[in-house]
């Protein structure tokens, strides 16, 4: 997070992490498609000819608060291929929240674990305290055969403190919910560090409301969560 009082600007960084081809770029594409033009920048993607992310993707979402601050939420993806670890570490620097996109298929468990370990390693290398940076797990590709059952997702959820969200990113299912969950936790973390509510008059409800104000949240849980101040677990 970068809080610039002189320019009255708050920049929040969210990184979509996970194994190659788990759907990180698809998540950003769906958010881009569901956000009105004036509330977001262009989606910057750098892909190879076989649709693999080469460096990162970047989607900026921005809005103005009642207190006169400009808030920029920058959504990044990392390249999933093993050889790009240095790039992953560069992109992960100073992340305020991480959405870990896992492939739900049973065959992907080993790779998910491997990248989970890689995330912890890179956080440590970046001087980030893995216990303090909020992470949300998205189990993507729920529509494919041989995926883990809901009961198994429940087991994963019980094994750690991270919220776990099922998704079919290619159809947009679970994408905004994942973003909501990671931003909610990121806000709480930033508020704890910098007192956003006290210092710039930006509360959690306003923050989340403004992020999703220009997004098409139809068919998602976002409206309910915004109304109740709740979220996934």
């Amino acid at each position: 997070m970068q809080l610039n009082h002189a320019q009255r600007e708050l920049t929040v960084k969210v990184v979509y992490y996970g194994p190659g081809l788990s759907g990180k770029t698809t998540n950003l594409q769906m958010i881009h498609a569901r956000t009105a033009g004036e509330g977001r920048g262009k989606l910057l993607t750098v892909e190879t000819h076989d649709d693999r992310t080469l460096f990162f993707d970047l989607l900026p979402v921005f809005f103005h608060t009642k207190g006169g601050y400009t808030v920029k939420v920058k959504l990044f993806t990392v390249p999933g291929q093993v050889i790009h670890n240095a790039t992953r570490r560069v992109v992960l620097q100073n992340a305020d929240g991480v959405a870990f996109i896992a492939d739900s298929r049973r065959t992907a468990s080993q790779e998910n674990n491997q990248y989970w370990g890689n995330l912890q390693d890179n956080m440590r290398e970046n001087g980030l305290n893995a216990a303090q940076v909020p992470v949300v797990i998205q189990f993507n590709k729920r529509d494919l055969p041989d995926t883990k059952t809901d009961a198994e997702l429940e087991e994963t959820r019980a094994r750690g403190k991270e919220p776990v969200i099922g998704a079919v990113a290619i159809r947009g299912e679970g994408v905004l919910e994942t973003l909501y969950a990671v931003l909610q936790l990121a806000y709480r973390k930033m508020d704890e560090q910098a007192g956003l509510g006290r210092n710039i008059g930006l509360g959690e409800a306003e923050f989340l409301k403004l992020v999703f104000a220009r997004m098409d949240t139809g068919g998602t849980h976002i409206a309910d969560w915004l109304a109740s101040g709740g979220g996934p677990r």
Partner: protein
Amino acid sequence: MSEGGDSGRPRHGESAPRLDERPLSVLERRLTLGDMLDTATFAELVKSFAELYKLGVKVFDDKGNRLADMKSGNGDFCGYVFSFPEGKRCCTQTVARVKDGPLATTQNARAPQAPAGTKLHGMIAVPCFTGLRYLVLPILWEGDVLGRVVFGPFTPDEMGDVPPSLTDLTPGLDLAQAQSYLAKIRRAPESTIVKVLLHFAQLLETLVAAGQKTFLTSQVHIEATLESNRDLEAQNRRLEQMNLQLKDMDRLKSSFLATVSHELRTPLTSIIGYSEMLSEGLVGPLNQEQTEYVKTIMDKGDTLLKLISSILDVTQIEAGKVRLSFEPISVNDLVTSALSSIKPQAQKKGLTVDLKLPSRAVEVRGDREKLRQVMVNLLSNAVKFTPKGGWVQVLVTEAKFQPELDADGWRFVVQDSGVGVPSDQLEKIFQSFYQVDNSSTREFGGAGLGLAIVKSYVEGHGGTVRVQSELGQGSRFEVVLPVQPPPPRALIAPPLSEAPPAPVERF
């Protein structure tokens, strides 16, 4: 997280020292218009635009730095007006308003004339006191104002003659002259210029998007490369550290072995000495059986002494305590002398020993004792591992250029018709204590130190030793040594492998 300025340092709860070594990533910096535009290409675009529409075009970043500036047709007119003191003052004021003034309909600016429903993206019109006009458009990117585009001055279509505001301010102005200069400036309806400027803005947005992509990816690529470098350097440091530790451990081991060997040798010398006195009858005659027993004690004692001496040699080499002392040597004499020491065993086994010396004596520098030991070790191995009735050939070459050494050198070759060495163990036989057959019931004795000593001494002379062998057919050991050896070198410790970290089970 950072607070306060653009280049604020990250201040996370738990900060590793590495963070301080690293500048803020380009992904967290606020980019300027100059970062994202290739200025040379952009200048070309602005030039062609200005020429096509006969309009002045200027582009500034948010700090007021000029990124592009093309004039078109207004030079003479503006220059003429500027030559009058009051004209100069007003002109400077207008230019400042256009360049640095607020991007709002205040301070003399108003909304431009455009067909209803046109999205103006914050464009303003700024009139000049001469009656000319400027259009100014903010460059917006991701909600930030990155700079502004200024179009003009142009002559609004509705403008007739030079306005009174100009003639009043600049007494002495030659109206005919001013009119003729004015005719060179593009005359157009304001709404037309608005359209052109909006089109220019679209082009600019495309350029900025492409430029941002190129800039960010190339910078991230550089950062990632530096990151990889840092990784490699850290790994190198770890390996160096580990290597030092291993060398220390190795020295410790060698020093321990040297001490123990020394302590073993002292009492053993007494055992052999007293046995000798016994066998020589110095304390009274022995019967035949007693003599045989004492001889066995002496024989075994001798074997043990040789073994301990070898261990002492190896450990001293490994502890870096061996200093080779080089002197002029006649290779022919040295080989002949070494050969004579193994002749008795060879004869006992009925081996044919053949020696080929070069016709001209080979004169080199080297450590006489150590080279003699190299030869004796290779020769006694040949004799030991060659069955009865076999042969051993020894060859010494003349001193000449040796490609392996890239210097003048000579070769000492020992070939035998012995049991040979399995091909997968050829590399290992030069290691200390290595035995091809390491079973407890093996046929050939020895501690497996002879070749390790050979290798150390040869390498200490700056030479190499090679082996070729075929199982059951025999072996060929070839030593290449320089005529002029370089100063002695240290040994290299073997690498250790680290245990892999335990896998994380989150999924």
